[in-house]
């Protein structure tokens, strides 16, 4: 570590965020590798180190002798300032070499409001924002992650984007870069070759033209790039080993525990949920493979807590077997298990017992909407009976706090649905006090957390406008008035943050200058309340002549060409439209494991998704 770096570290909070050296982190001789990859997470170390995707790719890339993958995170405000003051360029934690020294710099796009952090990181690394301004001496800047499904607002900044799952795709891109360098190809020539890899999107090879009213006229590919890019997918999850060596953070990460990914995708088809559509079809891993990987991971990391992660863990067809397998080794190894995202409708008695054999924390449910009608609209297949049954089980088992997640601003929503949120919480409170087996002498606490609905690309609700901020404000007030019990607490998200999220989620390439300008005027860490400067954003839009409502609050026609029209996640547009229509009639769709609704994603597998018998 240089004297400058030590001086900076002496001046900041939590210097451990910036040092690397954690158990499990990989060091290599940089002269003995063919490709150096900097994996960048555009948020804090604590957030990034919780992210499973980084752990998966870190292990896969570093398993190769010819590649060294290192990590970089967005420095917190104090460190950013120190680095700027002392002229320390953004470096990767392992080697402490600046990002410019790398062959490839890869960002993961997890959240629209971290886009300005990407610019901040490039800026700190002294790398020009626009791909067109970067010469041959600059690293190839790439992106992956869910927001790549409409990365158009960032299209001008990235050389290459990767749609879908990176386990096989990213090494293929690295190989093409290594090979291209050996042959002395130019960056453009290398990128053109990469365009042939599954799921690879080279934004500069696509020309977008616009209609006078601002909508998109056409998107044209050139130089042999595919007209439509289809995401990469692991067809059989059992062929893809789980990571068994995590870098174990020393300052607590948000999720500081072992994680095993039990399945990918989700069978549910909630119409608001982008992840549910991006990761189709749902694919599971076998119970024995999971249990064994979990055991190895705990052995290698020393973690004493393991979580079974996925979008919907309790939909795993062998869940009980898996829990039984894991219970054969977790107690003696002093490891406790946690199951996030438990679903109400299959939270069985024995499941309650198995999880209560480990730590007892609060119970969380996500009904998402306050009335059955609206739950049918969004296809959240949860009924009051199920909530009642599960809460009763849980109260019997000694739970005393329940957290309920809802959304506001959903399509077709009325004030009656808002009142339904308060009623649902009230009925949970009543249920507790009516239960003869409730824990003695303890009260119940029910907290309602309400997010603002953000319509997202590649979902049936991509067509709908976001509720205006005025309307959301009214609904929030109405909810507060509707809550009568002191046992119920209400919290909700900042609607202005959700508005900006909607703008960038459905945005197009014309938003790039706004990102640059907002960053220049001091916007970064937008997702952090205390650093969110809404007024600055509005000024930027006004000064650049951009109407943010055009992106957030406008109905998109079913025949309109969306900015993400050429990015294919396996689900057909026809299907999205069908689901959109069903939503308007409050008609539900069955989960994939019960009946196929014909979304088209089975083509990615080359056969049916499930074996229906």
């Amino acid at each position, binding site marked *: 570590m240089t004297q400058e770096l030590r001086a900076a570290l002496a001046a900041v909070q939590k210097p451990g965020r910036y040092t690397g050296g954690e158990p499990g*982190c990989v060091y290599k001789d940089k002269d003995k590798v063919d490709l150096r990859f900097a994996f960048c997470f555009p948020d804090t170390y604590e957030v990034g180190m919780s992210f499973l995707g980084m752990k998966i790719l870190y292990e896969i890339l570093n398993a190769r002798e010819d590649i060294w993958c290192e990590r970089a995170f967005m420095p917190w405000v104090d460190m950013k300032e120190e680095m700027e003051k002392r002229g320390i360029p953004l470096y990767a934690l392992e080697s402490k070499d600046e990002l410019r020294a790398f062959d490839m710099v890869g960002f993961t796009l997890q959240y629209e409001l971290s886009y300005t952090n990407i610019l901040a990181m490039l800026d700190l690394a002294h790398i020009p924002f626009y791909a067109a301004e970067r010469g041959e001496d600059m690293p190839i800047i790439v992106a992956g992650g869910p927001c790549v499904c409409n990365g158009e607002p960032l299209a001008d900044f990235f050389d290459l984007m990767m749609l879908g799952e990176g386990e096989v795709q990213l090494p293929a891109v690295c190989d093409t870069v290594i090979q291209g360098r050996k042959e002395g190809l130019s960056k453009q020539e290398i990128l053109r070759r990469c365009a042939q890899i599954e799921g690879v999107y080279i934004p500069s090879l696509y020309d977008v033209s616009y209609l006078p009213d601002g909508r998109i006229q056409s998107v044209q590919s050139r130089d042999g790039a595919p007209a439509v890019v289809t995401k990469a997918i692991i067809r059989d999850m059992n062929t893809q080993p789980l990571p068994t060596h995590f870098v174990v953070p020393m300052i*607590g990460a948000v999720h500081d525990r072992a994680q095993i990914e039990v399945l990918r995708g989700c069978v549910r088809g909630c119409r608001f949920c982008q992840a549910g559509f991006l990761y189709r079809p749902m694919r599971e891993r076998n119970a024995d493979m999971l249990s064994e990987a979990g055991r190895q991971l705990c052995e290698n*990391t020393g973690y004493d807590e393991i979580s079974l992660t996925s979008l919907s863990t309790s939909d795993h067809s062998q869940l009980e077997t898996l829990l039984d397998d894991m219970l054969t080794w977790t107690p003696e190894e002093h490891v406790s298990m946690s199951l996030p995202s438990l679903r109400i409708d299959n939270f069985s008695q024995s499941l309650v017992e198995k999880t209560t054999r480990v730590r007892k924390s609060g119970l969380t449910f996500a009904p998402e909407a306050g009335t059955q009608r609206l739950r049918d609209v969004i296809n959240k297949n949860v009924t009051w009976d199920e909530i009642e049954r599960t809460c009763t089980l849980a109260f019997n088992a000694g739970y005393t706090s329940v957290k309920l997640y809802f959304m506001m601003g959903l399509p077709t929503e009325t004030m009656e649905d808002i009142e339904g949120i308060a009623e649902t919480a009230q009925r949970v409170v009543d249920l507790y006090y009516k239960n003869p087996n409730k824990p003695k002498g303890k009260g119940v606490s029910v907290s309602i957390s309400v997010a603002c609905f953000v319509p997202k690309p590649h979902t049936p609700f991509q067509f709908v406008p976001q509720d205006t901020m005025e309307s959301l404000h009214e609904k929030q007030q109405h909810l507060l008035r509707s809550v009568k019990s002191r046992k119920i607490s209400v919290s909700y998200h900042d609607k202005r943050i959700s508005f900006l999220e909607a703008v960038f989620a459905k945005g197009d390439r014309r938003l790039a200058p706004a990102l640059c300008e907002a960053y220049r005027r001091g916007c970064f860490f937008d997702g952090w309340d205390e650093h969110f400067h809404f007024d600055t954003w509005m000024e930027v839009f006004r000064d650049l002549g951009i109407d943010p409502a055009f992106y957030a609050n406008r109905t998109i026609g079913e025949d309109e060409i969306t900015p993400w029209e050429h990015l294919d996640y396996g689900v057909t547009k026809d299907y999205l439209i069908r689901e959109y229509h069903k939503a308007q009639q409050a008609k539900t769709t069955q989960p994939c494991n019960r009946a196929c609704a014909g979304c088209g994603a089975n083509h990615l597998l080359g056969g049916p998704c499930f074996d229906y018998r």
Partner: protein
Amino acid sequence: MITVRARFSKTGEASYISLLDLQRVFQRALKRSGIPVWYTQGFNPHIYMTFSAPLPLGQESVAECVDFKTEDENYDWTAAAQQLSECLPKGIDVLRIEPVRTDSSAIALARYEITYEPDWAQRAARAYSTFAAASSASVEKKGKRTVKTIDLKQYTDVESARETADGFILSVFLPAGGELTINPALLTDYLKGLADLEGAVPRILRTALYTKNKEVFV
């Protein structure tokens, strides 16, 4: 059951691990190492351990120690040191593990090497000679609740001060342990004011801990 003591170094990156985090790091490393450590009983079993005279953030050391319990009195502790090192982060190396003979309350003194890089060496030497020549050097020592003014000169026992190719190196003994601890940063902060050392970031390395009668503790 016996208590054993692991002596370890904490340098470079590892010098930024706080005591709280260090506890978790050792908890996990001991678990991974397979060394037969004793766990507390109960719902949430954990390894019982104590660190002696922990360092302030950013200071380095080759003389740290942690005590933990084991029921296996005949374990091969030489091998254990190696096993444990492999599970610890960069910058922490276990130098040896052995059964505890002296209680950590016996710690009274620490030896430090304070190094100013070559570009600061001259100024540091100047500051030091001013300090050496002065009759007293009062500084404010912040406790948990109180601020006391103390005379640094009274507590600083200088072993050597020399200019080398690596820079200006000051070797000193300062009180450490339960009764009184003088943070070497008090000394470097004081020197800062004597010869315009504002931008300097001296490396502070603890090389040993001693008992009252100057017997080596670790």
